[in-house]
């Protein structure tokens, strides 16, 4: 069985930001990320992008990366989903 994009993004948030599984499980699409999570700084964003590429098998153009993409969990999953489905 393969993980959904949503599940993979949640696992990456746990691993990269060191958030607890409970904290990530409690998030929904409207949960704010960038600016709301102190763990999510530019270094962490770089790590997130590389992990997303590795685990989802996608390529992310750095020109595509902006604050809106990391605004909420929903926006991040939506971005990843467009890359996964091509």
């Amino acid at each position, binding site marked *: 069985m393969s993980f959904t994009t949503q599940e993979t993004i949640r696992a990456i948030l746990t*691993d*990269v930001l060191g958030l607890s599984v409970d904290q990530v499980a409690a998030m929904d699409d409207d949960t704010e990320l960038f600016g709301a999570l102190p763990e999510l700084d*530019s270094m*962490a*964003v*770089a790590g997130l*992008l*590389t992990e997303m590429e590795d685990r989802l098998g996608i390529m992310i153009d750095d020109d595509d990366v902006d604050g809106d993409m990391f605004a909420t969990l929903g926006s991040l999953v939506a971005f990843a989903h467009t890359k996964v489905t091509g």
Partner: protein
Amino acid sequence: MTPPTFLTYDFGGQSEFCLCFGERHAARRIIIIPPVFDEMNRTRQMLVEVMRTLAGRGICSLLPDLPGFNESLANISKQTVGTWRQALEEAAVQLNPTHIVSLRGGTLIDDVADRPILRLAPVKGASLLKTMLRSRLLADKEAGINSTIEGLMASAESGFLELSGYNLSDEMLQSIQDAAPSTSCQFQEIALADIDGTPLWLRAEPQDDARMSAAFADKLDVWSATCAK
């Protein structure tokens, strides 16, 4: 609690630091090749706890500094992946380990002696470099500077490129880009899931993981006992 001993090995006219736990002449002596750049800092506490546990079981472990990292006085901008490998070859001769363990970027340079190798979460150099270039790109963006990966790489040709606080030469960047774990040596590979681990090297701040350290030490104990040299 077992106290560490502080060893050195000589390379390039300098003495490089090597942390050591356990009896120096124990039957099993494991040299740990740490991750490189920031990832080294973020995993060091976890590794030291592994070493402490191994010492309690009569296993010696060694954690050498690579030139340009940690206590090393060597200039990082004069290093390449090749000089790191040469340093480790020297360390292996002088410190005489029986086993080699490597993590992340350390797996790029672990084929330095004819010893059994265990790798945790190996990574290609290109992937390490990309993450560092990205964080520089994002930091520049926050500072209102519009840079590109191509532009950053080109800047190293006429001097250095600063990534994660390290001044890296064009030769270094190229050597990281081209580096991959060797497949022509005797090695085993384990994944984080095998030791109940979390990728501490991805974190913004250095953290510890006692459960991971304990499970990793267990794994190294069993592995090193079954593949004697």
